[in-house]
Structure formats: structure tokens, C-alpha cells
């Protein structure tokens, strides 16, 4: 009797594991994409870093060009809020509207990233996210910078 119960429990466990394990591993593999697609919410530091590491997104610096020139997230492009119209034609040639774009500025109190994200959406870029922590959080975490 006890042996039957044990066997049933084992079989049930194997079935359950075989169902849930592959699904869990797929979730893990698709983490950056999932993070980027979640709702319309802004990205936090870990989500931004995951996208950076996966090379699946283009980082855009919404601060002034001279601030970008001094320092920026490694590999980021400059598309400043103040001179968006002048810089956008060159940006459009480099990045298609399908590209996943992560916009940032100085930090949470800075509205430039949200402005640039809105402008990009108006110009047909559908996959735009804002990294609200900005350069302050990124540099404090010791993540790659250049400039």
C-alpha cells in the first residue's frame, strides 16, 4: 500500500517536472526580451543591464550633446532632447523603427528621456523604453561607460 502511494507520488512528480521545467528554462532564456516588453513601465537598473548584456537594444542618451561627449553608457548614441530635430535624421539612418531602444538621461528627476521617448514613438519607433535610473544609477553601479 505504502509502495503504491510512493510510486504514484514519484510518477506525478516526474510528470509535473517534465511539464514545468522546459517552460521555466524558456522563460529564463527569453528574460531580456520579456523585460523589455513588459507593459509600458520604465526599465530599472537590472532590466537595463540585462538588455545591455544581451546586445538586443540600442541605448540612447537624451542629455545635451556636450554631456554625452563627456561621458555616456558604452555604445550609446546621442539624441538630445534639446536638438532632437537636428540629430534625428542621422539617427533614423542608423536605426530602423523595429529596433528596441532604451532612452536615458541623468536620473529619475530628469524628464528629457521621456520627452525623447515620446518623440521617437511619434516618428514610428514602436519599441521604446525609458531607463529611469539614468546615468547616475548606471555609473554608481560601476557598469561600462565611455567618453
Amino acid at each position: 500500500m505504502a509502495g503504491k502511494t510512493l510510486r504514484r507520488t514519484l510518477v506525478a512528480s516526474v510528470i509535473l517536472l517534465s511539464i514545468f521545467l522546459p517552460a521555466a528554462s524558456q522563460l529564463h532564456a527569453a528574460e531580456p526580451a520579456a523585460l523589455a516588453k513588459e507593459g509600458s513601465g520604465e526599465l530599472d537598473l537590472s532590466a537595463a543591464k540585462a538588455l545591455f548584456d544581451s546586445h538586443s537594444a540600442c541605448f540612447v542618451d537624451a542629455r545635451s550633446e556636450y554631456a554625452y561627449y563627456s561621458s555616456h553608457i558604452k555604445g550609446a548614441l546621442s539624441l538630445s532632447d534639446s536638438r532632437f530635430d537636428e540629430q534625428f535624421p542621422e539617427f533614423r539612418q542608423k536605426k530602423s523603427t523595429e529596433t528596441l531602444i532604451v532612452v536615458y538621461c541623468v536620473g529619475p528627476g530628469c524628464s528629457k528621456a521621456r520627452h525623447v521617448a515620446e518623440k521617437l514613438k511619434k516618428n514610428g519607433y514602436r519599441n521604446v523604453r525609458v531607463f529611469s535610473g539614468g546615468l547616475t544609477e548606471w555609473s554608481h553601479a560601476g557598469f561600462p561607460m565611455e567618453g
Partner: protein
Amino acid sequence: MPRIGFQSALITALRLLLGALFIMSGGEKLLDLKFFALVIAEYQILPSLLIPAVALIVSLCELVCGTMLLFDLFSRISASVMLCMMAIFIAAMTNNAMRGLEHDCGCFEFLSQWYGLKEEIGIGPIVRDILFFILLLPVALLGSNRIPWKKQQPGGL
């Protein structure tokens, strides 16, 4: 004459102070001309094509006029050129402050690095440039235009 001595000492002091200041300011701009050009672009006053040339001219003007003030070569002309530049800087900063634009003023970067003074356009940099304008006035009005190595003719002016 004590009065003449004081006036001469005052102008010399102003000349040396402002000369050194403009040499440092022009020098640092020339060392990183691209940064200064990007700051000028942020003013959104000049066409993009003119910006690199303006950045070079402003930096050179500051460096040359500063050197001339320091060594008392054509001090009145140098101070007058700097007065004109200060008037343009004040007008440009006031214009952008009124438009609500927030960016670096591109004035004296070394002051912000050494003393932590804020270099974003606003009332602080505008008042500072007005002060420099006032300090330049006595040199422009009462300074000399003589060439030190040229001997003055006896009885000449």
C-alpha cells in the same frame, strides 16, 4: 601724485587679473574645442555650419586678448574686444535663460572644476559676466595702448 599712482595700480591689477582669467578660459576651450562647440550648439542661436568657426574664434580671442592684457600690449584694444564679447555672452545667456533652456554656459569650466561653481546658465553666470564687464571698463577707458619695447621719443606723446 598719489591719485595717479592709485589709478595706475588699479588698472595694472585689473589687467593682470583679467588677463590671467581669459588666458585660462581661452586655453581650456582650445584644448577641447569640440566640447566648446557642442556647448555653443546648445544655445540654439547660430547655424550649425558656423559653430566650429565661432568656437575657434572665441577661444583664440580670449587667449590672445588675455595675453595682451597680461603683458600690457594694446590693453585698451584688448579690453574693448573682451567688453564686446562679454556683452554678447550676457545677451546670449539672458536670452536662453528667458527661453527656459537649461545647459552649460561654456564660460569658465575650470572654475566649476576647482571651486565647484555651477556652470549652467542662470542668474549666477550672468551676474558674474556683468561683473567682468564692469572690471574691464576701466582698462578699456584708461589703460594704455603703448608698445613696451618701443622707446618713447623725448617730448613725444
